[in-house]
């Protein structure tokens, strides 16, 4: 039988794949080899000039990348710990379980930009309610204007916004766990702590790895929180890679250079996330 016609059925899927995945990446690569900017529009060819500039003459990109690494790793660790604790809490039979399950998901369902505007108002150092309350204790942190504290303000907002996502994945994982290991642990007289360490946590490892990787991918694109809260300031203290690429691409209109940064960033993320996934698998699934 001739099955060649079967390839025709692949075309719709292939077409979509090329259109939405392959073409944009190829276009970004081509754009990165051009000098497209506001005064020189068009896909001219300048070779690796943008990449040479990026690797030899742009410390700001690398600073923003290391800042991003700090912010995303910190936020994801916090989200994992808090998300796991909340999921564990509502996994048990507690009162108002359904209410809490919905309540914990609310931050994730809000619009990030709008919520960040509200957080910015909360943290406003002269008009916001946070410092108004803290003034009772005689403290008034510079939430948005101190280079160190501003990083933690960004972390607070990110953790608030995205812990529910971690909570959701981990709760789904907990609900899918088999009951037998827990029954066996109970028969052996294991305390709740030992049960968590030796049963729950190892069983949750595969799901945890998936959740952490998904959140790391998302957290590494952190942009709207920084844009609204601090615009990358004070100075460059909260500037992340995506925000820096946004400035170069859509503020300064250096499209070619921004494309080279985006592509470099993509490669770095693919490599680093692959390494992180391998390390996590090795550590958490060692048994």
């Amino acid at each position, binding site marked *: 039988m001739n099955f060649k016609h079967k390839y025709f059925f692949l075309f719709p899927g292939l077409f979509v794949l090329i259109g939405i995945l392959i073409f944009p990446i190829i276009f970004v690569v081509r754009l990165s080899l051009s*000098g497209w900017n*506001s005064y020189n529009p068009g896909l001219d060819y300048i070779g690796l000039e943008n990449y040479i500039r990026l690797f030899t003459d742009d410390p700001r990109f690398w600073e923003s990348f290391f800042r991003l690494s700090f912010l995303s790793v910190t936020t994801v660790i916090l989200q994992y710990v808090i998300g796991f604790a909340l999921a564990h809490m509502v996994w048990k039979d507690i009162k108002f379980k359904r209410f809490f399950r919905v309540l914990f998901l609310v931050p994730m369902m809000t619009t990030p930009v709008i919520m960040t505007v509200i957080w910015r108002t909360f943290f*406003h*150092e002269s008009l916001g309610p946070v410092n108004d309350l803290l003034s009772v204790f005689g403290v008034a942190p510079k939430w948005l204007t101190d280079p160190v504290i501003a990083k933690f303000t960004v972390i607070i907002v990110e953790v608030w916004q995205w812990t529910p996502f971690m909570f959701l994945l981990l709760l789904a994982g907990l609900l899918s766990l088999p009951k037998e290991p827990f029954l066996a642990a109970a028969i052996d007289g294991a305390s709740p702590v030992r049960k968590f360490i030796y049963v729950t946590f190892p069983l949750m490892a595969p799901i945890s790895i998936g959740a952490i990787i998904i959140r790391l991918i998302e957290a590494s694109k952190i942009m709207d929180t920084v844009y609204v809260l601090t615009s990358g*300031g004070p100075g*460059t203290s909260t500037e992340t890679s995506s925000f820096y690429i946004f400035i170069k691409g*859509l503020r300064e*209109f250096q499209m070619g250079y921004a494309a080279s940064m985006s592509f470099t960033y993509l490669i770095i993320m693919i490599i680093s996330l692959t390494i992180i996934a391998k390390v996590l698998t090795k550590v958490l699934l060692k048994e």
Partner: protein
Amino acid sequence: MKTCLTAIISSLMIFSPMAYADKWSDQFPHIKATGDIPGDCSYEKMSKKNYKGKTLKINTHAIPVMGEPTALHAEQFEKLTGAKVEVTHTPAGDLYSKAMVPFQAGQAPYDVVFGFSNFINDWKRYLAPVPKKYMNSPEMKDVTKSHMGVSSWDGTMYQYPVDGDRHYLKYRKDVIDNPEMQKKYKADTGNELRVPRTWKEYAQMAKYFNDWDWDGDGEKEYGSAEVMKKDDLMFAAFFSRSVAYAKNPRTPGGFFFDLETMKPNINNPGFVEALTDWVEATKYVPPGGTNFGLGDEIGSFGGGQTLFSFSWDDAFIAAMQDDSPIKNKVGAAPLPGADRVWNRVSNSWENQYNQAPYIVWGWAVGVAKKSKVKDMAFDYLCFFSNGANHQADLAIGRFGVNPFKNSDFDPNIYINSMGWDPEIANSYTQTLLDMEKSNNRVFPLRVPGVFEFTSAVATGTSKALAGQLSPQEALDEVAKEWEAIVSRVGKKAVQDAYAVGVKMEDNKL
């Protein structure tokens, strides 16, 4: 003489009983204070146009600033001409790219594009020049020389004037002119309390009036509200502080660069002194003041939180609106000067008083070259800024429409239709008028890739404000970046474009 005559005629038109009640103000309450004002694009004239079946597409700023008057005048234009007008609102930061991306792709999804006047160099090749019939209209003849220059490129107008912008000083008149405060200040500091003539005086007074309740409202007040948030127009605030130290009337040939060599002046001692002052200013702004954008600055000064402010008109107009707690308690004055100015030719300080107005960039609007309804688009813009609409728009702070016509400098407009105290109205109009007359003005940088230059300034100065770098280190970094940009864009291209701005600054255009 011509200016006086225009002002008198405008006043007569505005305040004559006939103007107040006409058929147009009945239909369009926005112009109830003046009624229709005769002109080439008046309500009467526009009602005779027939654009039925045609659609005008406009991209403008978000509501309210400039977005609200755009939409309002679009609605009026539809009613008068039968046209269909589609208005898209875009955040300020995206105005440039939203027009530029289709422009570069050879498309014109919008017939009318709003942006900022410093976009002109990048946008001009995609915009249609303003036709002669509008250039010769009496309304256009009323536009100030500065704003004709700001809207034009080497004599050709590409941006239709709808707004006029400059930075000037705003201060709390009820404090500075208060004899008791003056006595107390003198006793405590040994200095006179007066409208600051220099940035050093500004700093002394701002520090003195920082962090205590000097107006007795039970809340603490602070020294100064300024735009210090990175990338949020902060570079313009820095230039406002720099002009006094670095714009020397005896060294023509470039404020931002040395036009001959295209070497950046941005890290010379004049600019460094200004940045040093600015870093010092972080000590007398309200809590969180180093993260203030323009909106925060308007809210802070307009809400009575600070003694001083300087930037666009908006904070002053907000303070003078009927709902403001400090209406008729504020004053306007030129930007402070300096007791010494840097001479970049002799490489030395000149110990003499210097003051320089900064005619900052502001709202601008153009018609796409590829638009198929250019006539209608220009008619819309002409209608937008006709006498009646312009007078009404000026009175609404949130509209962001500021004086740019000679007739706007008549204090009676503000006294009679906005309820301003005559002394304040006089100081306001005189301040603006003096800036027009000055021979030591600085105009916005309008060169190819302007955003790369201003973005570098914002990054460098914000690093200094955050304490990451010293003022000298920060500006050295900016200068290095500027040199790299000039080299990328091409020295000749930047030099040719910059020469046009220098001609204006050197009063040769």
